[in-house]
């Protein structure tokens, strides 16, 4: 097994904050690797270092064996970056954007034109190729952005939060785009705030918090470790809360979290639900709510770190 991206103890500090606190990454060649974490976890900083836009304060990183600092130019020849904000020129047309990148990287006029046409068609942008990008929808822009990254036929592609701010339909289209990329053999490093996105697309995930990797593995590994699902229970009578807590806690072998009269806990085995229902029924507890659903990123965080992600707390306040 070979690795395309290797990051070793990357540290990046700013005046007030430590963006990266010794991050290690190993991304297999040809894989889609998900870097999962809340806002401000250091995902973008990591990507910017790997894309040669930033230099780390310490640690080192290589892409296909090339050092991102001392061999930055060679790294740029094999990577492409799709930034968090559509990194295309809004005033130009889709075709012109791709043509410009082709020409800048040494393609002939004819080659740049045909590559632009090919990519625009591939990404379902053939009809709007001649329109200025500022008239595109959010989803179209993001697809153009990915297309722009592929002009140079990169071996490694960074996608920084490719679906943030997109509606569900555009998000699904984007997911199809990313799935299609793996067929071309390109290695993809994808950052996301959404657990289901990482789950859908990535064969391997690293969870980042406060500039460090706090867990990594396949989506299945992580789910097994953190509880893929969340059980929510609310008794009809608030006085029954202590009983509910004891019953659920002993069956799931966790310490359930209580908010108001509602109790939540991560669950790894979905068969636990009928057991909980039966045990509570036997204890004479009438339920107002009992649901089992996929864990949110926040809940994964809670079970991995014991604290809620920073941004979530801020939005609650």
């Amino acid at each position, binding site marked *: 097994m070979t690795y395309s991206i290797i990051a070793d103890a990357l540290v990046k500090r700013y005046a007030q904050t430590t963006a990266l606190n010794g991050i290690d990454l190993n991304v297999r060649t040809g894989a889609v690797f998900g870097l999962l974490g809340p806002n401000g976890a250091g995902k973008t900083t990591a990507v910017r270092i790997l894309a040669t*836009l930033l230099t780390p304060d310490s640690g080192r990183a290589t892409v296909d064996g090339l050092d991102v600092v001392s061999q930055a*130019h060679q790294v740029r020849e094999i990577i492409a970056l799709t930034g*968090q*904000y559509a990194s295309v020129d809004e005033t130009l047309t889709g075709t012109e954007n791709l043509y410009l990148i082709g020409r800048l*990287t040494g393609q002939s006029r004819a080659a740049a034109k045909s590559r632009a046409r090919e990519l625009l068609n591939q990404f379902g942008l053939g009809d709007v190729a001649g329109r200025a990008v500022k008239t595109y929808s959010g989803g179209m822009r993001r697809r153009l952005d990915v297309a722009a990254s592929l002009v*140079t036929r990169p071996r490694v592609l960074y996608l920084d939060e490719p679906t943030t701010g997109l509606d569900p339909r555009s998000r699904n289209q984007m997911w199809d785009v990313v799935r299609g990329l793996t067929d071309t053999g390109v290695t993809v490093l994808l950052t996301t705030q959404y657990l289901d996105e990482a789950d859908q697309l990535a064969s391997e995930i690293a969870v980042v918090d406060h500039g460090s990797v706090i867990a990594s593995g396949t989506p299945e590994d992580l789910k097994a470790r953190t509880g893929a699902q969340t059980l929510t229970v609310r008794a009809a009578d608030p006085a029954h809360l202590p009983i509910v807590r004891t019953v659920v806690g002993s069956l799931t072998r966790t310490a359930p979290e209580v908010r108001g009269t509602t109790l939540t806990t991560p669950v790894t085995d979905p068969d636990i639900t009928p057991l909980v229902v039966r045990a509570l029924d036997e204890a004479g507890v009438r339920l107002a709510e009992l649901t089992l659903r996929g864990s949110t990123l926040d809940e994964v965080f809670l079970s991995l770190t014991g604290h809620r992600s920073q941004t979530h707390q801020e939005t609650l306040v």
Partner: protein
Amino acid sequence: MTTMTVRVSPPQAIAQSVKLSWRTLVQIKHNPAEVLDFSVQPIMFLLLFVYVFGGALGGTTQQYLTYVLPGIIVQNSLFTTMNTATGLATDLEKGFFDRLRSLPIARFAPLAGRIVADLVKQAWAIALLLAIGSIMGFRTGPHGALGALATFALVLVCTLSVSWALVLVAMLAANPEKVQIFGFVVLFPLTFTSGAFVPTGTMPGWLQAWSKANPVTLIAQTSRGLLGTGPIARPAVESLIYAAAFTLVFAPLAVRAFKRRV
């Protein structure tokens, strides 16, 4: 760090800069109103100054036209450097620069591309001003076409040196609105406290002292000499010393800020 600069040969780097300036000029194709912005504005200034103020300031509008046309050429080119800065700041803000910086191209190409494109716009505006001026009755002096060409060269060299200062501002502010405010607050008084529009003789002593040293005065004076009559050698040398000083101070600072940026 040296290995990466060696990788792009100078001809390649120049080709990349030219392609990026092509981008800036294609933007005009999509936003024709921009042509108005850099064509109408200089003409408007020329017409207003000559026909509204001209008679009062210069005796007759014709005499004043001869005086003010070179001044307006300089003023307009200086104001155009603001476009360079706001354009760069927009690219930074929108993330387009990240795209460019992650490509295997010369580090300075995005900067150079923008500057070259704006020099083209300035050259266009100078030609336009000379054309409209001649319709209004402006006649070149003893140096004729050669003098006009030398004016192009002088004004472009000098505004290029000023561009570096605005590039620095763009890199530090990275916000087009802030850049515009800054540019306006500095460039507007700088231009008006010079001999570009009126002779400095009636200004208070302290202002005269400043405006005699003001580079805008010197560039306008040289252009006046080249296009009409008047001293050339001394103001030209002084203008070029200013240009060299601006470039020496601000170009390295701007490039450094550019490299560090984001």
